[in-house]
């Protein structure tokens, strides 16, 4: 007896063969050229990621000019906070230093980002006050030197 192949299977095999060929062709067209250059990703994405402009200069760049401030800071509780944490991104400032191209935050709200009373914050790690009650009407930096918070100004 002749081996019987249902006609559906023949048609489907042809359809699947066409589909798989098309899929492979499309895949070849759609996958970027540099895919797999280094690993299972687009090689060009490394270049793309290198493109964004650098905003932060890094602690080392600050110390080239401001070692004196760093020495002050090391003597007090803000010693582990890096300059750009408060002063913001400093790449521009490190390229051409002007007083205007770096942040000098002095508002009560800014200090409150860390020091406003928050029950979920560990009080033994961060000193906390209630901004609306603590010496209202004055800026924090009128009494506290931000680089040396416990050395009170007159």
């Amino acid at each position, binding site marked *: 007896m002749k081996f019987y192949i*249902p*006609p*559906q*299977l023949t*048609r*489907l095999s*042809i*359809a*699947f063969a066409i*589909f798989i060929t098309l899929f492979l062709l*499309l*895949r070849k067209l*759609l*996958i*970027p050229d540099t*895919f797999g250059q280094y690993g*299972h990703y*687009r090689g060009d994405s490394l270049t793309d990621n290198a493109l964004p402009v650098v905003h932060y200069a890094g602690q080392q760049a600050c110390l080239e000019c401001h070692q004196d401030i760093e020495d002050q800071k090391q003597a007090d509780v803000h010693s582990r906070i890096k300059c750009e944490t408060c002063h*913001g*991104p400093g790449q521009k400032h490190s390229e051409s230093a002007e007083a205007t191209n770096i*942040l000098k935050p002095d508002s009560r709200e800014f200090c409150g*980002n860390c020091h406003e009373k*928050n029950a*979920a*914050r*560990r009080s033994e790690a961060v000193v906390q006050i209630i901004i609306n009650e603590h010496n209202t009407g004055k800026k924090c930096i009128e009494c506290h030197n931000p680089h040396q918070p416990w050395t009170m100004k007159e």
Partner: protein
Amino acid sequence: MEPGYPHLTEILSHIQGYIFPNEIDLQWGILIVVYPFITGLVAGAFILASLERVFRVKILKPTYQLALLTALSFLLVATLPLISHLAQPLRAYEIMITPHGSSAMAIFGFVYLWYLMVVLLLEIWFDYRQSMVIWSQEKTGIMKWVYKIITLGLSDISPRTLEWDRKLGYFITVIGIPSAFILHGYVGFIFGSIKANPWWSTPLMPIIFLFSAMVSGIAMVMLIYMVVSYIRTKDLDINVLDAIGKYLFFVLILDFTIEGLDQIHRIYEAEESFETIKLLVEGKLYLTLFISQGLIGTLIPLGLLAFLQFYKGRIRLRKTLYFITGILILIGVYSMRWNVVIGGQLFSKSFSGFTSFKVGLIGLDGTLMAAFWLILPFGILAFLLWLLPPWKMVPEDY
């Protein structure tokens, strides 16, 4: 905070306790909630269809094609929330065409294509082939050619070939059941395998996802069956509803039990993450977990379905109750996806803090986009029902 990060300033004001910088902004938003919800509907609808085909539950016959077409409509949309979430239309599709065995995400291309091409399309094709051949002979003009093309030009409807349609269709359905389990088990695996996240990391996760998928898929097909009957002004068969309701009841009990088991296990083990998770479920997830998922989506439907197992009185009331149950279950399963996806990102890996999530309305990752992906399958289903109406099929005699 300096200008340029206004949304972060907003979020920062809602942060509690200690949290690492990369945990402030949620990486997975509402579209990643929609994705497992849609995939679950596919798997659930397919499993309902296979009840009829493989396990010969004859009473479910009127929902068989409806369930298959529902599964297909939702499957066609399943990848789209992922791709639009990635927000890179020119390369987001790469995740689908460059599968890789070492990445749970990048293997979705394989899982998806297998399920779409080998299971769902083939089963529908074998099932509809005889009818499509007859339609292609009856229709004129462009529709004649449309049907000719989707029959792949094969017009053989001799008894021997039809017998093979049945055999092959049956074979595909048998393969389809484990495939549907794999499809949705896989979605659970994506979360369950993330060992760094104690809210997700449990080997029960694929099973939980699978059972909630079955619950949502069966509820969705039940609702679609009711709505389609209403639109066609045909009386819907209360016996069919009772049968679906019975399966829905059993699967919902299983789903509830397994999820409860997972939680009991978590509570009894009380690992170091437990304090945070306790705060999470009692705080930010309270509404979506206890009220929306637990009460509205599970306990009330369980009560209603249990009542409907015994109450065989007024048909109109039973229909209304089934309809309400279906809607509540869908709300519950959607909330479950929300609790997993969003809940798992709300607490810090330091176990000492929480971030918050506010879903946007517009934009590629917003509510409107999510609503669009949820509505689109119904449009596709309407088209498929017009192209391949189950009620105009050639009656089968087996």
